[in-house]
């Protein structure tokens, strides 16, 4: 049986249960998702844009889905604390796929709205109807599967002219006693002149149980708005993550999406940015440190549908031991979109003979008055720099670590949250010297 079929069967069997525990706005998307999954199949390793990852194998285990919406008898705010010191955020927990809205955090939000999709369905049905599921493309079977099974999620809504007083932190805790598929959904809508910074953190609690984290995020950046969206993954070897982020940018908007993978099992991140308004700027950053048998696969697609925009992408990988990294990026500049400036960079360090890197940066350009370029390198640390440091008495391990940290620093410096940036420098340092535990800051296992 194909991996998809088991979930389609699960849906058909429990359709009534799934729909009963979900808001109408989500239920309305299911028929189209089901139709899209009809005859669809998950890509196999080696197929276009899936050179190094086997999606069929990721979905093959018989994962359970929390269709009955059992609540967990845990207060996530108690069980898990954020370990970024002095990071003052409005914190919202999602335990597996069940969101918990803290009243304190909500009070600190001012005019910004963070609510579950179920709440939003009652409070803001028009907004959901207008945006939910509009950007996510059902021709990707993993997105269709998410749409078919998602029962709740979060909405972050920043009304016109509002600036979020504090960064919004979405802490996602993955924890399961049995193999489980977590179906998460997030919708971010920033109105005209709205400004918001969002930090999403993925943590796995405990280890030994396979968790598949299937996430779809839609971000609508209105005119002259700014949205910074950081994602920090610090999960475990048994966690698989398949995440798709869709962004739509209107005139003059500025969007930063930064995906940081410090610890994981198998990760597939899809970024899809549609720039529809002029003078928009897009910043897509990614940073990965992988070792052991970890796998990080990124696909980015930036489509320029309007003139006079800029986009900048930079993805950096450090691969140690038997880690595998893959990057497939595409910049599309459509006809008539003159004066677009687009850059796409992918720099990789292979730090062991068994590490593998696959990269495929692509440009597709249909107009002449543009500046588009990409650059990619796969290599090692600069021998001369190592030698220089050793002549000054730095031992080889420290020198390597310092150089690797320096290699990552320009992606870290792209982070516009000062405290997070400092914390990332610290965490990356810990990651390189091997002292970063799988679940830092976890109150349950106390690491």
């Amino acid at each position, binding site marked *: 049986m194909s991996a998809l079929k088991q979930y389609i069967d699960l849906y058909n069997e429990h359709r009534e249960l799934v729909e009963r525990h979900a808001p109408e706005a989500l239920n309305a998307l299911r028929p189209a998702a089901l139709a899209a999954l009809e005859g669809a199949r998950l890509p196999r390793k080696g197929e*276009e844009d899936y*050179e190094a990852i086997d999606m069929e194998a990721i979905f093959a285990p018989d994962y359970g889905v929390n269709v009955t919406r059992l609540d967990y008898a845990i207060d996530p705010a108690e069980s898990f604390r954020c370990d970024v010191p002095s990071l003052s955020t409005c914190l919202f927990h999602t335990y597996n796929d069940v969101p918990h809205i803290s009243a304190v955090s909500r009070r600190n939000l001012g005019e910004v709205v963070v609510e579950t999709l179920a709440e939003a369905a009652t409070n803001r049905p028009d907004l959901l109807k207008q945006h939910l599921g509009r950007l996510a493309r059902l021709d990707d079977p993993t997105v269709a599967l998410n749409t078919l099974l998602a029962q709740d999620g979060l909405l972050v809504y920043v009304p016109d002219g509002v600036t979020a007083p504090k960064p919004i932190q979405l802490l996602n805790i993955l924890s399961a006693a049995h193999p489980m598929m977590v179906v998460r959904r997030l919708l971010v809508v920033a109105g005209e002149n709205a400004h918001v910074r969002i930090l999403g953190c993925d943590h796995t609690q405990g280890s030994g149980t396979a968790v598949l984290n299937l996430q779809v995020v839609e971000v609508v950046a209105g005119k002259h708005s700014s949205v910074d969206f950081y994602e920090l993954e610090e999960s475990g070897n048994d966690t698989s993550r398949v995440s798709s982020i869709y962004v739509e940018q209107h005139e003059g908007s500025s969007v930063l999406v930064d995906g940081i993978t410090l610890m994981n099992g198998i990760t597939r991140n899809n970024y899809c940015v549609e720039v529809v308004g002029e003078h928009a700027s897009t910043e897509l950053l990614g940073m990965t440190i992988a070792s052991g048998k970890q796998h990080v696969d990124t696909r980015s697609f930036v489509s320029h549908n309007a003139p006079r925009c800029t986009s900048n992408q930079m993805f950096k990988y450090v691969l140690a031991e038997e880690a595998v990294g893959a990057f497939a990026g595409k910049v599309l500049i459509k*006809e*008539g979109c*003159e004066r677009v400036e687009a850059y796409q960079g992918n720099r*990789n360090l*292979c*730090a*062991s*003979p*068994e*590490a*593998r*890197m*696959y*990269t*495929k*940066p*692509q*440009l*597709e*350009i*249909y*107009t*002449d*008055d*543009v*500046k*588009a*370029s*990409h*650059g*990619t*390198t*796969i*290599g*090692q640390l600069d021998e001369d720099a190592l030698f220089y440091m050793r002549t000054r008495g730095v031992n080889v391990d420290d020198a390597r670590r310092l150089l690797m940290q320096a290699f990552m620093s320009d992606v870290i410096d792209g982070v516009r949250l000062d405290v997070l940036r400092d914390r990332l420098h610290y965490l990356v340092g810990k990651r390189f010297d091997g002292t970063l535990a799988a679940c830092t800051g976890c109150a349950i296992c106390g690491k």
Partner: protein
Amino acid sequence: MKNQEDNKKGHQPKQDDILHDAVNEEYKYGFVTDIDTNVIPKGLNEDVVRQISALKDEPEWLLEFRLKAFRHWQTLRQPTWGHLHLPEIDYQDISYYAAPRKKKEGEIDPELVETFDKLGIPLNERKALSGMAVDAIMDSVSVRTTYSERLAELGVIFCPISEAVRDYPDLVRKYLGKVVPYTDNFFAALNSAVFSDGSFVYIPKGVRCPMELSSYFRINAAQTGQFERTLIVADDDAYVSYLEGCTAPMRDENQLHAAIVEIIVEDRAEVKYSTVQNWYPGDKDGRGGIYNLVTKRGLCRGDHSKISWTQVETGSAITWKYPSCILKGDYSVGEFYSVALTRNRQEADTGTKMIHLGKNSRSTIVSKGISAGHSQNSYRGLVRVAPKATGCRNYTQCDSLLLSDTSGAHTFPVIEVGNDSSIVEHEATTSKINEDQIFYCNQRGIKTEDAVGLIVNGYADEVMTKLPMEFAVEARRLLSVSLEGSIG
């Protein structure tokens, strides 16, 4: 003339006008030679394959090879992955063999001599450039190979592949299909089934070929395809520089050209392969033109061996071509230098593959695309470093120059690295002609049209300097014809 008048009036033509005039330049080799040609009926089946083999009086093993390839081809479908609008070709509507009829055994029709003279390829050795031996191929057969005897004195074999099958069956059998097996791809299977003439080159151990070897391909007959096959073998310490040129008449229907080139290079040997591709590109509305669907691959089998591909692609309605290197020998070197110019409705999807299997192998890729009119120009490349190929080095640079807002330039590189001691770099840029550079030239009294020519030539210079002298002249002229057509 128009520009001269403009200049007299004291104002310069706009850059857009110059480019517009440039892309409307006519194709100069579009004439048809009226010659008695033996064409077999259209269609493709096992009987046709047998007939081609019989016409060429081939041994049984080669017929078997063709039939195997044909049976395999029947199981395949035309590839669709290219960034091209390649229509479903009706393979039954093509004639697979066309040969100019000989008047008398051993003599060449004066019409043919004249045709090749017109193309600048004299078949008469006395008239020819002394530094170049030519194998001239019209439709499916080789018309004449010059200097064969002189080369034979050194042990160099340079002859049509059909002669090589007859005279050196062991050599051909040893190498044919070893680099591009018939199972490789759709067009390779088709070529293996129906290939007609092409050149065979063997350079024995330690011989440095004293002259450039060259093949000139001409499609003349209507409703035929050309399916030539070239095989070059350089034994230990040998060196050869090989050139390839091609043209075709102007016709309203598309014609198919599906060739295979295989190169095998042994220890410390070097092969330099240069192409100036100038097939008929179709008219300005995209009517007619050649579909150039070619598989070219070299195997650096020996240690310290080297293959260098240089191509200037200006013709063909559709180009689908990826000259590749398999770098099997330790310290082997692969190079790829390409200029691809597309105009009007031309589409080119071209690039290279560098497969690093040997330790410390090195490769360089320099690709320059120029797109004008409504054309689409893509670079598609693969650099793969096998896990055991330690210490490898690749540098890739692919630049695209856009000369109109309706053309497209695309880059599709794939890079796979399987160890930690190899370094791979890739850079690509896409932009239009820099207005600052034109302004700078204008300031110094250089007219805009000359400035455009200078900038484009400068842009392509890195590749042009890699061409042998005879071809560099031709290639520069082609580029200037295409781009500076309006001057004077």
